[in-house]
């Protein structure tokens, strides 16, 4: 394998990592604050993809703008879903079976809504930008992937800033660290939970819209990404955005470089194989290892 090939693959992996990060960060945030494993994340990503698709097909809105519009739209949608369904779940410190099943059921409903409106044919968004390639010497980068990468990174950095600077961000982090103490200091856990769920959904929709530019999609879109998001979360630990970024990078690298050794048909199974290997070696995920280093106790 030549240096140029290696560099090409490396760049492809990094670009992929950006997308994977923005896809997983929504699930992470919801889990951290509410201890709910959001299986409907896949459904929200699917709706995000169709959102961008409809805007593109009907109003000729550039999908990037469509993705940006998805953020507030899905934020509101997420808050509505929380108000309607999620807040009725029994609260707990640990993830409960009821929340898992409820989110799963909601995912089924979203899938069916997808089938009802758009049928089960694959759709895709095709713009003149889709095929453009940037060439820097021997290295070629798909322009679309580069743009999507920057959009993703921007989003994730914005989230990190919001978490560290804004009042809501601090309230969220307080709830993640210790929900009881947070409530004692005056954090309204239900309101923050609603905002968090909205935020997580917004990111899911945004990620879905971005992915719609890269891949074709159908209402079943989302399941392989859900598994990947989960692998990333296990890899990176559930508590931080930087953990997610790390996990996303590892998964993207493994997936991209595995093309050299594994036949293409087995590709979807790679992420799971990685998960098993990581679980056998680090039962608490790599994030757990890092956590022990940072915290003195």
């Amino acid at each position: 394998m030549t240096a140029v090939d290696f560099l090409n693959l490396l760049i492809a992996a990094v670009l992929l990592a950006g997308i994977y990060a923005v896809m997983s960060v929504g699930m992470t945030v919801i889990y951290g604050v509410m201890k709910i494993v959001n299986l409907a994340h896949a459904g929200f990503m699917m709706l995000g993809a169709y959102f961008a698709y409809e805007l593109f097909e009907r109003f000729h809105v550039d999908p990037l703008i469509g993705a940006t519009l998805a953020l507030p739209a899905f934020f509101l949608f997420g808050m509505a879903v929380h108000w309607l369904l999620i807040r009725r779940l029994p609260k707990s410190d640990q993830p409960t079976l009821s929340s898992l099943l409820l989110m799963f059921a909601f995912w089924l409903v979203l899938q069916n809504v997808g089938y009802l409106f758009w049928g089960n044919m694959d759709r895709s968004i095709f713009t003149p930008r889709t095929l453009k390639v940037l060439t820097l010497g021997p290295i070629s980068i798909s322009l679309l992937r580069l743009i999507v990468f920057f959009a993703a990174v921007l989003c994730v950095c914005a989230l990190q800033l919001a978490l560290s600077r804004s009042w809501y961000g601090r309230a969220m982090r307080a709830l993640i660290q210790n929900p009881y103490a947070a409530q004692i200091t005056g954090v309204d856990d239900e309101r923050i939970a609603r905002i968090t769920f909205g935020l997580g959904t917004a990111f899911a929709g945004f990620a879905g819209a971005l992915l719609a530019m890269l891949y074709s999609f159908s209402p079943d879109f989302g399941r392989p990404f859900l598994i990947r998001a989960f692998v990333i979360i296990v890899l990176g630990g559930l508590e931080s955005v930087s953990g997610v970024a790390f996990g996303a990078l590892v998964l993207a690298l493994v997936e991209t470089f595995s093309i050299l050794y594994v036949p293409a048909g087995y590709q979807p199974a790679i992420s799971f194989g990685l998960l098993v290997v990581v679980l056998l070696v680090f039962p608490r995920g790599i994030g757990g290892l890092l956590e022990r280093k940072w915290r003195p106790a």
Partner: protein
Amino acid sequence: MKRFVGNFQPLFAAGILLVVLLLPLLGLTPNVIRILFITFVWITASLAWNLLGGVAGQVSFGFAVFYGLGAYAAALMINAGVNPALSFVGSAAVAALASFLIGIPTFRLRGPYFAIATIGVSEAVRVVMNNISAVGGAGGLRVTERGIFRQTEHYYAGLAIAVLAVCVSLLVERSKFGLALRAIRQDEDAAADVGINPFRCKLWIHAIAAALTGVAGGVFADYAAYIHPQGVFAFSTSVTILLMPVIGGIGTIWGAVLGAAVVTIVEEQLVAVFPQVHLLLYGLLLMLIVLLEPDGLVGLLRRILRRMHVDPSSRGPDKALWGRGRLEGREL
């Protein structure tokens, strides 16, 4: 004052068994027999899942992997000339072996992490089976037929495995092992503190559940005569297997059986008319169950019986809480 009606459940069950045994002799249409057969297969899978998910509390979203492995194992063995009954045993063995391979890494995870990991397993195996042309790949595998298709043969095979699953569930429920599993479901760490080895118990119940599901898959393969990865390893198969006990009443035997019956009838009748709406129905039903009646249909029936001032417990007032699965507030 509640009336205790005595333990009507064994009599009721025996009555149903008798009826079901004699049904083919009543001259029902082949379609009805077919639906009943499918119900038996699903009852088996449902009871199997209930052992792991309801009694032991480990929710798996990937049981299709055992169903599919059982189906393929039986198909390959029948094609090689092995007696079908023996090949079903082979299905059970293959599925149980797979359950150990799957369980050893994934049982380190708790609750929802385990659940999602099982999705990954099932999907990975489906992808792999899609690519192995030796077993047919994406094109599937045909089972060579042995003479004329005798529907009643398959009917009784299905009934046999359903009865087997009920017996295994009863045995587990009344054994010390079942008690250990319940303890693990309620609080794994506390169970470990009292001397139970959760890892080993989980592996064993996983194997039992996988074996039963594998046999169900094998019996189905023999009947269907053609299987393919998109069908037996599909995520929707895992979903169906999961939904049946949850809708019926997670943790209870009646619930698993009732749920399987309801889901099969809904699927058979509805899918023909509205092809895609069953996802919506399942989703809505599941949401209603989680939010309103976590004990499923059985829980609903219990509530109704209680309203009519009949004591629904099977063993008398002091043991009213025994053997009930609880969904709400259960921490994984």
